[in-house]
């Protein structure tokens, strides 16, 4: 799935259809969009398009930089997401298209969970079994995200 497709009207229509189906299945339930790495392109663009239809957007290991596969979120206006936005990033994410710096900058305006530590990488630096995938820090990271979704107090720094 290319970045261009993730930004396309067709993709957004599909996401809107799924969200509508979920709201029908679970009336009154808050619906969040959660994207990781290149999936953040889908979540961010859909978040901007769906507006009040969703309760919030979570972007983990955000694709801030462009690559051969597409623009990523390099030109994206994060302010276009009307719903609450949570950024989650490992401070030692070595993937070239998902640096921690921009997340830290956006953390001035949006909620940010910064993760450090974990296990030594067992995969490419842009794959899951590394800091990019919060290897060894999955439990506290997901727990913090879940707490944010549920409106509870959550850890901004992990550990």
């Amino acid at each position: 799935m290319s970045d261009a497709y993730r930004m396309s009207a067709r993709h957004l229509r599909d996401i809107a259809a799924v969200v509508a189906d979920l709201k029908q299945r679970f009336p009154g339930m808050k619906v969040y969009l959660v994207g990781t790495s290149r999936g953040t392109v889908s979540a961010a663009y859909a978040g901007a398009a769906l507006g009040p239809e969703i309760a919030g957007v979570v972007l983990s290991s955000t694709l801030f930089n462009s690559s051969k596969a597409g623009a990523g979120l390099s030109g994206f206006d994060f302010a276009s997401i009307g719903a609450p936005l949570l950024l989650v990033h490992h401070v030692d994410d070595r993937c070239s298209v998902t640096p921690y710096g921009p997340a830290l900058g956006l953390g001035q305006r949006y909620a940010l969970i910064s993760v450090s530590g974990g296990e030594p990488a067992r995969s490419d630096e842009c794959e899951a079994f590394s800091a990019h995938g919060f290897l060894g820090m999955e439990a506290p990271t997901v727990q913090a995200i879940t707490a944010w979704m549920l409106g509870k107090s959550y850890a901004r720094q992990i550990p």
Partner: protein
Amino acid sequence: MNRIKLMLSILLMLAASVGLAAEAIVRLPSEGGASLPYLLSQGEADKPPAAVAVLFNGGGGVVGLNKRIPQPAPTFWSAHVRCLSARALRAPWSMCRLTSTP
């Protein structure tokens, strides 16, 4: 024809601890007679969820639901049980993508 390019995993976030996951493939009607499938996963089907999260994988975003369905292979189910059950919220979705790959 299924439009599998779109991969949406749905995880029902539970406030309480999660037991065995209940999962199903939902197919929605889509453009041109195509169907739009997504994976609906609920931590504990007998307990009401606290919120719903639509998960978007990284990488190519494709997990090959068309290859795993209509008869989910044991590896598929066990992978998702490992990812999404209980203690399930402890695994990142990106890891689920990798571990669910046959």
